[in-house]
């Protein structure tokens, strides 16, 4: 897994929303939005698990 943060930040609080945008399922490229930050991940396995969790 590789990550590139848009801006450094602490972990989100439990009450804070976290939104994940899987940009490309095959490469596992996804953006994770929390607080005022965005982190880009490359994790094909996680992307696949997220996709499979959608019913």
């Amino acid at each position, binding site marked *: 897994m590789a990550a590139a943060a*848009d*801006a450094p930040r602490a972990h989100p609080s439990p009450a*804070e*929303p*976290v*939104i994940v*945008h899987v940009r490309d399922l095959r490469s596992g490229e996804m*953006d994770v*939005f*929390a*607080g*005022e*930050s*965005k982190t880009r991940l490359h994790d094909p396995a996680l992307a696949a698990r997220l996709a499979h969790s959608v019913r």
Partner: protein
Amino acid sequence: MSSHREAPEISMDPVADSTDLYAFVSPDQPDTVTLIANYIPLQEPAGGPNFYQFGDSVRYEIHVDNDGDGLADITYRFTFTSRLRDPETFLYNTGPITSLNSPNWNSRQFYSVRRLMPGDGTGTELGKDLACPPCNIGPLSTPHYASLAASAVHDLGSGIKVFAGQRAEGFYVDLGAIFDLGDLRPFENLHAQYGMHVFSSPAPGVNATNGLNVHSIGLQVPITELVQKGASGVSDPKSVIGVWTTASRQSASVFDATTGKTVSTGPFRQVSRLGNPLINEVIIALGDKDRWNTLPPAGDKQFAHYYAHPGLAAALPALYPGVFPNLAALVKSGKARADLEAILLTGIPGGIISGFQNNTGPVLSDMLRLNTAIKPSNSPNILGLLGGDLAGFPNGRRVFDDIVTVELRAVAGLTYALVDKSFTPDAAASKVTDGLTDTSVKAPYLSTFPYLGVPYSGFYNPS
């Protein structure tokens, strides 16, 4: 319109849609500059029960560049919070609202103002929990509206005043005609009319924004806070500032059906921008408008071809056959409109107009440029520089300036002679107009901050 609904994406997000921007040396406080950014276009005054409010999830900003690089040296950031006194009622108010803390006022909005400068982190909080006025509803709900709204002008200390709330639309324009294939009613008998012969004689202009409201964010700031230190006199480049406004939203949103609310998170991204009036409206092409809205002025070199070869300049001779022969020849020559580039992208250098300059250097950037050393005019001309009034547009912009006529005439070639002495503007270039003046606005402008008129009430408008 000046910038109302000017781009596809922002036209679907009215609370973040900047409509007009004003920057001028305050006529009654000439050691200050007034900055006003308007949002939420075309408000029908009776639009309740959820009357208009700023977006709680929108970050509104007014930026000032004082070193000519097209990037903000000072940013004023406005953040809004809505509060309900009683979520059990469906009413905006449960009785007359006679003060900003009236117990009858259910749906209120408050805001904070921060000043940010490069390198100072999260900046300085200038004010918080500042009350917006209610919208102007009618004689029962808001019986003394003018004085009620005036009480929402907040003094932040250090010579700074702020106001955020509903105002009468001060921008006047004949939208209905202009968007009907470039019709200008005072000259519509000269329009080609696509062979349909609809108009046989001139007609007076119709102000399409009459009776409508907007939401204004107004700030009055000492000139010394905005310009570089040591600014002195009209010819000093340090006296010139560039101003623009932006609205930003967080990048990611989902609609949470369990609460009926939209949840937003992630970094703020710019969704709306406004410097000079009518630019993203008329100059920038449809395919680039949304992207233009996301960028700072510093990157405007990529859009310079739109200013150099505006589509409207080519359209006028086609729409009005025989009326603009010299403009037609200029367009056909392919020469760049250096006049428009100077007025809109760099500011006008010294030596072109006697006693005036508002040049910010070589960086092409769409900003409303104001030479703060030009004193307010005792007898303003709504045509600004074109009318010999150095204190008006495009030296900043006052609330009553006729920017539609000024830009029509400039695009029609009137200002090209300033940069090419061999060019003779068409006679029509100094006459073309949509037929409106500041007297076309029903609600009088104010002589003091926030200068835009008392908003129209829902009870009386339309009447």
